[in-house]
């Protein structure tokens, strides 16, 4: 049992270090399969189709943000 837990520990540590250093969650330019790479509550506003960036429909019909403070929704 101990050896499996020790092995999992090493594997998890490796995955975390690799993901951090290799930036697995970053957006890869012109790569349709990559993650969005957004941070701080930013959202992706499009995606790649055939290596070309296509804005999402929400980006094109934008204009309805109502704020996000504690008063929102009251």
């Amino acid at each position: 049992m101990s050896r499996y837990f020790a092995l999992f520990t090493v594997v998890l540590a490796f995955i975390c270090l690799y993901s951090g250093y290799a930036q697995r969650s970053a957006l890869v330019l012109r790569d349709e399969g990559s993650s969005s790479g957004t941070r701080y509550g930013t959202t992706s506003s499009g995606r790649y189709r055939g290596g070309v960036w296509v804005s999402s429909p929400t980006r094109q019909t934008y204009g309805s943000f109502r704020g996000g403070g504690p008063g929102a929704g009251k």
Partner: protein
Amino acid sequence: MFYFSLSSPAYRQGMLATYITVEPDEREAVTSPFMLNPSDVGALRVFVKANIPEGRWLTYEIQLRDAQGEVVAAALKEAWHESGPWYEDGESGTWHESDVRGGLDVRSRQPETVTLSLAVLDYTNTAGQGIDEPISFWVDVSNGVVDTTYFWPGVVGTTLLSLLALWATRHSGDQVIVASVEDSDPSDRAILGGADSLVRADIDIWGDETSPQQFQVQVNISDGNGTVIHSQEYPIRPTMHKDDGGKLERTTASLKLFFLIQPLSSYRFSVEVLPDGPIDRTTLTVARDARTRLPVKVTQLKAV
């Protein structure tokens, strides 16, 4: 320390750190171009902070454009900065909250010249009416930034797994005897032993308020013929559990012994705790093929 070394600027290379202003009639501002090079470590991090006054809602888009001016990546941020009064249970005050930071991590497979452009899609007051004001943004672009999002989940995960590994080592091996009696003398017989099979005996004792400062634990091991091959008394000091008034309520004690017994055969383990009057319960657990994390004192026994 480790955290700081991970997020240290060893690989980090600042590309751009500046304020840029989006004028109300242009709705967009572009930075000077910079290089996005492929790298194995880290990514290009675009960090944007909108400096907007209280009572504003802002939707802005972070766009990366290639040398031809085509958008190659974009991300949307709904930023807000608000304040207001609060009343609760007769008390009152004001709150200020904002969410104005946005960001994007980007990697590239080939060297590329990119420019960053900030587009204001919507800028209103809290009533939803459009505002015509210049907006200042703080922009920080760095290359080779390591993603530290994985750090804390990693620390927590590996710590839990390490603790599990330590726990599993303490309880390693095949349990061949589990004898628990509401008395002071558990015993049982099992097949165990062999040259490379470590035998671990765990003895746990629960005593009442009349427990003395020290117990004597008599451990006897006898072979298949009933011949005693090991007989020893181990003195142990119990842990005293006292109530709030400092009066002794109960005691606990445990003893861990390691043996190498040859040959593989049937052996009887019997334990007796003295004095037996205060003893509520005694548990004897014997495991074979046990492992330890650190070297331990092992008693070598040989049956004739």
